[in-house]
């Protein structure tokens, strides 16, 4: 058994649709308010009610809050998954379970401790309504965790008061259920357990937020007025959040009229069509979707690319191909987005790593889309979008104004004899556009068919090529405008490790631990495509690099080999793509095994359970 303060992981096994989310959220928020670095990962099924669902909480005073894989405490509230859940507890760990019914002796392990609390019985005795009995079981187990983990009871009580301020009866029930679990644990077990919490000061300027909310907030601050979408997991909450934000901040108090419009489209083909139509007219417009939606949007993405119309596409990635696993996370849309649509197309991609960057990259995506008159993809994923992250408070620069790119208004048009759509290019090879309805002189004909630099129809090879070649130059020019990579160097680094997006925390934790073991490495997280010169330089200065990503086909590695001069052999892949968020342990194991270094000096690195996580290392 290891004793530790503010450094452990717990997993809560529940049945979905029974109300466990509010209890788990309550615990998360309480730990957050205690000032302790914490993360919450919701591992949920694609189902409404009745299937197994898990929630993992990792606390770590050093700020390592990527997924843990080893669990000090399992809250086993789902008898369907007892076997698997009990098996996953680390040696010397604890299982908290509902002892209303006896545990099958076959499930017992003598290297872990079992804490039984008769939750169902307690709730049946204390609550009358059948639904309430089920719901309150969750709050009761939260109460017992408050006792065994030493969660600050005052904070938990205050949270319940805030949440149910307007619902007196519910507030009373919740408090009662919380106390039931708390008192039972205090009376029957030595509290707290050897691993527990202690208030610290780590979250002073932090917030606890999901990436999808942050993305919506970014779009709001970017000045987006038109959103078109089709419901799809895991991106739906982006639009739900955007709607809520618009109702709060975009309704004219004087007229009651909305300074925005959100259209639920008939499918993703229509959603991207609406975004393109709105952007053609000059609105900042976006859609939010997942991989299957991008597949459908491919046709019109090519139109936007070729006709040079801005569009912002939020892709909250999930597991593919096909329907795949809608409620599991992956980074599998990189190649699909980079070259979406038929013919020669290439797009601008942004890879935020956390809610903070989701917010920051929102306005950035619109600025890039308008400056370069082209689709811009922001690739988040389910882990970033739907899980609970502790991140620094978002900052906003009051001086920010949208970069609309080159747009000619009446004054500029007056100075020229005749407006030609693709003629007047700037230093970034972007040709000035006009907006419909603004000025008689600005009228032009937009077409997805072959056109020359004047915007006229063409089937002439030279004229066609002239436009296509400029589009390539334009895409290249955008490299210095996408967010630069994050590079962290270590003295005597022997190799580099590249990654993107939500792998960030796990990879950085892994590199810290590897450095402590005498295996130092440089770190680079790419944040945009096309790659800028810093990416190329990092690849050049290392003999070899690992590329850590969450997909089977090493898509980031492929993109790097296609779009930089790096030799393919220099890049070794570490691929974790089973659908659950990445852990530092995956990365450490992958790097050590590739380097041929035995893991034995640190046997605690990987338990038998974590070894089972699907993973592939390629040289």
């Amino acid at each position, binding site marked *: 058994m290891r004793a530790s303060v503010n450094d452990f992981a717990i997993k809560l096994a529940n049945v979905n649709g029974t109300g466990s989310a509010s209890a788990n959220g309550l615990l998360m928020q309480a730990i957050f308010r205690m000032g302790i670095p914490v993360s919450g990962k919701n591992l949920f099924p694609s189902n409404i009610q009745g299937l197994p669902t898990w929630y993992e909480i990792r606390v770590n005073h050093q700020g390592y809050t990527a997924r843990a894989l080893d669990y000090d405490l399992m809250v086993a509230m789902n008898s369907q998954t007892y076997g698997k859940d009990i098996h996953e507890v680390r040696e010397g760990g604890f299982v908290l379970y509902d002892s209303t019914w006896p545990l099958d002796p076959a499930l017992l392990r003598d290297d872990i401790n079992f804490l039984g609390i008769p939750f169902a019985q307690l709730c049946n005795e204390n609550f009358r309504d059948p639904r309430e009995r089920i719901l309150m079981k969750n709050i009761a187990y939260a109460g017992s965790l408050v006792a065994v983990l030493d969660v600050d009871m005052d904070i938990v009580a205050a949270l319940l008061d805030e949440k149910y301020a307007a619902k007196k009866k519910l507030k009373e029930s919740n408090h009662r259920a919380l106390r039931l679990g708390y008192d039972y644990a205090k009376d029957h077990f030595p509290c707290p357990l050897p691993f527990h919490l202690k208030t610290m000061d780590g979250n002073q300027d932090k917030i606890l937020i999901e990436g999808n909310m942050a993305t919506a907030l970014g779009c709001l601050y970017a000045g987006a007025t*038109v959103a078109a979408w089709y419901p799809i997991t895991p991106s739906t909450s982006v639009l739900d959040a955007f709607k809520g934000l618009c109702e709060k901040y975009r309704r004219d108090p004087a007229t009651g*009229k909305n300074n925005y419009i959100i259209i639920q489209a008939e499918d993703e083909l229509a959603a991207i069509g609406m975004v393109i139509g709105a952007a053609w*007219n000059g609105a900042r417009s976006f859609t939010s979707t997942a991989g299957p939606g991008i597949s459908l949007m491919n046709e019109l993405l090519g139109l936007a690319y070729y006709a040079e119309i801005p569009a912002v596409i939020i892709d909250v990635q999930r597991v593919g191909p096909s329907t795949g696993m809608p409620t599991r996370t992956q980074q599998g849309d990189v190649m699909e987005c980079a070259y979406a649509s038929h013919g020669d197309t290439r797009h601008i991609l942004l890879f935020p790593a956390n809610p903070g960057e989701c917010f920051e990259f929102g306005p950035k995506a619109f600025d890039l889309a308008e400056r370069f008159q082209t689709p811009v993809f922001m690739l988040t994923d389910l882990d970033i979008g739907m899980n609970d992250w502790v991140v620094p408070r978002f900052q906003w620069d009051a001086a920010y104004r949208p970069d609309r790119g080159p747009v000619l208004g009446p004054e500029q048009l007056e100075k020229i004899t005749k407006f030609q759509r693709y003629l007047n290019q700037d230093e970034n090879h972007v040709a000035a556009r006009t907006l419909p309805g603004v000025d008689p002189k600005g009228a032009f*004909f937009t077409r997805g068919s072959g056109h020359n630099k004047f915007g006229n129809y063409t089937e002439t090879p030279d004229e066609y090529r002239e436009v296509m070649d400029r589009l390539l130059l334009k895409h290249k020019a955008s490299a210095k405008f996408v967010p630069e990579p994050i590079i962290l160097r270590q003295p005597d680094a022997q190799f580099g490790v590249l990654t993107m997006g939500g792998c960030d925390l796990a990879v950085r934790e892994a590199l810290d631990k590897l450095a402590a073991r005498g295996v130092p490495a440089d770190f680079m997280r790419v944040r945009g495509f096309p790659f800028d010169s810093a990416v190329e330089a990092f690849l050049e200065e290392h003999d070899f690099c690992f590329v850590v990503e969450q997909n089977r086909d090493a898509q980031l590695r492929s993109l790097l080999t296609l779009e930089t001069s790096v030799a393919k052999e220099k890049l070794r892949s570490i691929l974790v793509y089973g659908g659950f968020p990445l852990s530092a342990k995956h990365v450490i194991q992958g790097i050590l095994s590739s380097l041929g270094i035995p893991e034995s000096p640190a046997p605690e690195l990987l338990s038998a359970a974590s070894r089972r996580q699907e993973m592939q290392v390629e040289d």
Partner: protein
Amino acid sequence: MPSIVKPIATHPSLQRNELGLTIRDYEGAMSTLCAGCGHDSITAAIVRAFWELSTQPHRIAKLSGIGCSSKTPAYFVNGAHGFNSAHGRMPPIATGANAANRELTYIGISGDGDSLSIGLGHMCHAIRRNLRMVYIIENNGVYGLTKGQFSASADIGSKSKKGEANRMAPIDPVMLALSIGATFIARSFSGDKEQLVPILKAAVAHRGFALIDVISPCVTFNDHEGSTKSYLYTRQHELKATETDFVAPASEILAHIGQNGAVSVTMHDGSVVRFKGVPENYDPTDRAKVHSYLEEHQGQGEVVTGLLFVDETVPDLHEMNATADVALTNIPYEKLCPGVEALRRFQEDFR
């Protein structure tokens, strides 16, 4: 689409509209469609309608999908903003454009392949949203650019140029639109500009989605004997259910409305559509009656034309969404961004 620039030569005696523009100012590039194509007649009717309405050319957005019909926006109103998009996808593009800027006049040109096959879903949903736009289906029952395949509007028994008979039931855009709540439904014939021009003007004035299905024979692939979309067949089977006049908003004319028992409908912008002649028991504002009339007459093989149904009471996309009265594109960024202090306060909820 290919097009040929038209020489501009304006005769000094040409009549001018309220904006001082002649009808030549509403023309576009030279058509490259086949000589005698019905679509060119529709183009001519559109030119006339906009000229008569004195619409500012640059305040018109003309959109289309892909197909022969979708080439035609290049052939009318040169001064308008054009968008020739992708096959079947014009309705979503138009929806987004209108969402962003409700102040422009939107006209979409589509065909039976574009609207009744690949883009059928999009058209239906644009109808459901009551998107304010003129939506023309240039309906010839055949795919022209790919050389003669049946489209979804081909009637059972109608013969292709090679003599093959169509065996599948057609999708009738008029009946379909009636069944999903369309608020303005007309059918016309490309050979009848007299009928089409007032319908087009009424469509522009309409509060929401104005569907005009225009039978427009394909002279190359579907104008032969045995085709039910030929000039001859349409002329022989046409039944004009209604005749309409369009009366622009002007008080001295309003005095005449409703005389002689004729039906008249006041449009959203104050203009009036006057039905000069309608059959007994036909009420162009009564969906059920229109439906049974069409069932009866189309069942007899007649091609019923005219402005068939109007409902000015249904809110359009923006009204349903309570969107700002001005174009969203005209709202300054300062009004859209909640600012530093709002962000600080908002984040208190995430503590």
